[in-house]
């Protein structure tokens, strides 16, 4: 904290020392409008430091008809950076399907909203906090969770669950352990204290994340359908109220930092990371929901990226209104803060609201009760200007609509990734017996148990967690039931790298499959697109390809995108991350007691495999972990088959014909079976069919597949035949070993030890 302040102060005083008083009257021949003293000159260097390209600066000057003030430059840099403006991704994001009869609010608000019946709505979104988490893992991850929770309760929803998707560098990289430890503790530290269960997620390791870890946090809340709150202001002369924590000098330029690559100086960016206070956020939640219930609120917007600037502009612009802010009224944590600093601070746990004037006193009393700051800091005006006053001077006077709407939009050049060769299963000679390969896989960083992580998250608070972490999707009861939500977060970056289009499709399909596997009807998704530098055509090609794939899958599966976030420039010294479009999926169960789990339930049950298996080893974890190769084309995704198989599985679950269901994904069939065995401590006797090489059958990552168990195979087989769904028997449950082919049988207990030990021993430094 102290470091953050001193750094910001130093910059300010340095600028001031170099640029005493009005020094910036002539910039490219354009005169300034306001007389503001003691501000730095707008030099090419300063413009570049604000992340604005020369042509973007020209556009800005043309737009306002003069040179900007220093504060205005800061405001523009906040509004026009990649993080806030989506300038590289916008035209591609527009192609995504966002509508369905059950969608109440698609992208463009704080979070997406869908109708789940009974007068209730689900509000959810996923957002990245990648750059801050790499610089300062605990606070970066914690404030990522805080930000996404605020997005959800800003809309009037009480958060009921969180998920996260984490990507870290090579386990052998010296920094990885430190990042894992800090990020996991930060996520837990915030969510546990705030009081929301963190019920699911995923975590992977790959050297391509060495310089940029990914922290994608998702929050899900429940609101009454007719009591959703939006950010558009309405009415002229309405009080704009500042609520929550005080404003400090932390996080200035956070969004700009998150819109640039890292160089060798990444550590020096620590002052741009904010510090989280989950206690204040919990108070803010309760206070906001209370004043919403009392009918005080016209519009509300949380102060996230680019803080006061972004929230005030958005509220005004969306409501076709102007905004006047009086910064002298902003509650500050430190003295002597400039307009520039206040407008760009990303101090956490703050909200901006437009209140009904007659309810102002009532709202204030509620905030005081919760011990939170409450200050009227502005009003709405009919002028469509964004005016910022401070110390008697006008520090900014800008056209409000254009600030957001006229942000540059780029159709950046993009080149498609080169097609990878399809690897025939027969061309891969198994280096190990399948039993050894299985042991190796489930003891690997990506496939091992993530218990060490999820035990640091309170996943049972609120008393509604039906399925805890470790299954295909988490299941959380809605209020007192009987409805429940199924929640998942998925992506397979190595597929996306090899083929962004198929990888994009696969991420959506896997989320859809995970929801189907617990018996839920998938409703909608949120996407969190993490990529490298979009100014490089090959990276832009990944983004474009993945968005196309996501769109195609979402359309085919009736699984609209209702919210999302784009994180670009995840690149260090020219090395980009694997393309990682994380998909957060939400599905609904009519009866939470009927949710399906992956555990074998009893001995002597039939094990069935649903879906076609050609033995696709390209880009499989078997190829990577066992054969030491990362190549080939990823498995293609047949969306029609996905849909048919998913619906078939759900109907079997609904009718009580199956006893366990598990989707087949990373690691392939044998890994899925081992997971089912380990969680139940029941073994299985398995047999590979003829026609596919055994190692490809057991470890291929063909899509659209599920493992099922049933007491009575006949009815399931008849149904599959009638509906032309491929289904074969691959064995039966029972015993205490996994026995297959003529391999040495593997005791389930020993497998579990393998599965559970990698992460704790790695984190203890003993691997």
């Amino acid at each position, binding site marked *: 904290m102290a470091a953050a302040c001193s750094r910001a102060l130093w910059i300010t005083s340095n600028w001031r020392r170099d640029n005493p008083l009005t020094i910036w009257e002539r910039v490219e021949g354009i005169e300034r409008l306001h007389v503001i003293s003691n501000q730095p000159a707008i030099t090419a260097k300063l413009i570049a430091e604000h992340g604005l390209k020369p042509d973007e600066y020209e556009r800005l000057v043309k737009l306002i008809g003069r040179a900007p003030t220093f504060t205005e430059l800061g405001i523009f840099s906040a509004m026009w950076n990649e993080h806030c403006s989506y300038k590289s991704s916008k035209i591609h994001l527009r192609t995504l399907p966002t509508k369905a009869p059950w969608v109440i609010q698609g992208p463009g608000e704080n979070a997406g909203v869908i109708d789940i019946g009974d007068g209730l709505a689900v509000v959810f979104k996923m957002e990245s906090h990648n750059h801050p988490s790499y610089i300062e893992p605990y606070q970066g991850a914690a404030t990522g969770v805080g930000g996404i929770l605020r997005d959800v309760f800003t809309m009037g929803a009480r958060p009921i669950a969180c998920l996260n998707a984490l990507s870290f560098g090579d386990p052998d990289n010296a920094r990885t352990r430190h990042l894992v430890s800090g990020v996991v*503790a930060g996520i*837990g*530290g915030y969510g*546990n*204290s*705030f*009081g929301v269960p963190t019920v699911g997620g995923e975590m992977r390791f790959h050297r391509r994340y060495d310089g940029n870890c990914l922290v994608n946090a998702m929050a899900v809340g429940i609101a009454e359908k007719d009591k959703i709150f939006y950010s558009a202001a309405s009415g002229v002369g309405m009080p704009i109220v500042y609520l929550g924590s005080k404003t400090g000098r932390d996080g200035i330029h956070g969004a700009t930092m998150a819109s640039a690559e890292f160089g060798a100086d990444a550590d020096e960016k620590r002052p741009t990371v904010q510090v989280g*206070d*989950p*206690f*204040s956020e*919990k*108070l803010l939640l309760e206070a906001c929901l209370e004043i919403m219930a009392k009918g005080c609120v016209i519009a509300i917007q949380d102060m996230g990226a680019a803080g006061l600037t972004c929230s005030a502009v958005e509220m005004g612009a969306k409501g076709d209104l102007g905004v006047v802010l009086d910064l002298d009224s902003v509650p500050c944590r430190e003295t002597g803060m400039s307009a520039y600093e206040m407008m760009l601070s990303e101090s956490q746990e703050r909200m901006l609201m437009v209140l009904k004037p007659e309810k102002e006193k009532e709202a204030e009393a509620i905030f005081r009760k*919760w*011990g939170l700051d409450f200050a009227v800091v502005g009003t709405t005006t009919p002028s469509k200007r964004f005016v910022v006053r401070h110390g008697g001077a006008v520090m900014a006077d800008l056209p409000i609509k254009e600030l957001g709407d006229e942000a540059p939009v780029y159709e950046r050049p993009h080149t498609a990734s080169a097609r990878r060769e399809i690897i025939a299963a027969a061309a891969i000679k198994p280096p190990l017996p399948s039993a050894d390969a299985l042991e190796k896989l489930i003891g690997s960083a990506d496939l091992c148990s993530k218990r060490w992580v*999820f*035990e*640091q*998250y*309170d*996943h*049972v*608070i*609120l*008393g*509604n967690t*039906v399925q805890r972490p470790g299954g295909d999707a988490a299941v959380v*009861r809605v209020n007192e*039931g009987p409805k429940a939500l199924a929640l998942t977060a998925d992506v397979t970056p190595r597929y996306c790298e090899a083929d962004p289009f198929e990888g994009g499709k696969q991420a959506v399909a896997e989320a859809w499959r995970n929801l189907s596997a617990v018996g839920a009807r998938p409703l909608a998704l949120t996407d969190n697109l993490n990529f490298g530098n979009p100014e490089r055509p090959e990276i832009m090609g990944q983004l474009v390809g993945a968005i196309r794939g996501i769109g195609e899958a979402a359309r085919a599966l009736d699984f609209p995108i209702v919210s999302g976030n784009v994180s670009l420039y995840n690149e260090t010294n020219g090395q980009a991350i694997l393309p990682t479009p994380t998909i957060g999926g939400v599905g609904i169960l009519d009866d*939470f*007691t009927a949710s399906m789990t992956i555990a074998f339930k009893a001995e002597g049950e039939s094990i069935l495999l649903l879906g076609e298996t050609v033995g696709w080893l390209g880009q499989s974890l078997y190829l990577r972990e066992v054969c030491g190769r990362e190549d080939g084309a990823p498995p293609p995704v047949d969306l029609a088959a996905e849909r048919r198989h998913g619906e078939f599985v759900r109907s079997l679950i609904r009718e009580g014909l199956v006893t366990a269901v598990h989707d087949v994904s990373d690691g392939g069939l044998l890994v899925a079976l081992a997971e089912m065995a380990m969680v139940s401590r029941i073994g299985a006797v398995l047999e590979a069919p003829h026609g596919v090489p055994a190692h490809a059958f057991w470890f291929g990552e063909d899509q659209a597949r599920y493992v099922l168990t049933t007491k009575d195979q006949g009815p399931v087989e008849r149904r599959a035949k009638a509906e032309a769904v491929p289904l074969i028997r691959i064995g039966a449950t029972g015993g205490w070993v996994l026995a297959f082919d003529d391999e040495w049988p593997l005791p389930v207990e020993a497998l579990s030890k393998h599965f559970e030990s990698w992460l704790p021993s790695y984190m203890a430094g003993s691997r």
Partner: protein
Amino acid sequence: MKSAVLVFPGINRERDMARALRLISGREPALVWHAETELPPGTDLVVIPGGFSYGDYLRCGAIAARAPIMDAVRAFAAGGGLVLAVCNGFQIACEAGLLPGVLMRNSQLRFICRDVYLRVERSDTPFTRGYNAGQVIRVPVAHGEGNYIADGETIARLEGEGRVLFRYSAPDGIIDPNWNHNGAINAIAGIVNERGNVLGMMPHPENHVEAAMGRTDGRGLFAGLVDHFKLAA
């Protein structure tokens, strides 16, 4: 049974607790704000629930222990009223002087959320009459600071006077360091004060009270309390 659940800023398991009390006692508990100075008239049971009161920023429970409502709670306990203090509530009760000892950081120095097994040491108290002595129950824990410790004399007294009501154990009831996730001395999970009317415990019985949600091991504690007041009436 009329219960009052205290709400300090930052407390976050008050809803879980209120639901358990409602389901088992059939009566909605009163939620009592920290700034109050009196408990609702006729309160039978005071519950200090879990969470992060005041962010746990000074020391877990230290600020809440000095909140206005706590004087009323101390008076209530001094008069023999029953107080159930769970998780952060246990930490608050220790800080408030209602119970001896202190909860340190878990021995692994990490927050831990998982189901644990508790051996019920006695069944002849209002809090444990719903169980049998020696019975093992499974309930979740979710804390970073649950590692109970007190000076040797206090521990000897607690043990000598049978004031340890719950201990972390293996599923078969054996006390085993491998099943003591936070390193608490003598595997202590829950204790009562000298008079036996204030129980502090780290685990969350309120999260295992519904059959439809999977487990009901926590019901016994609340059902026992309901019986206790029924008999007293």
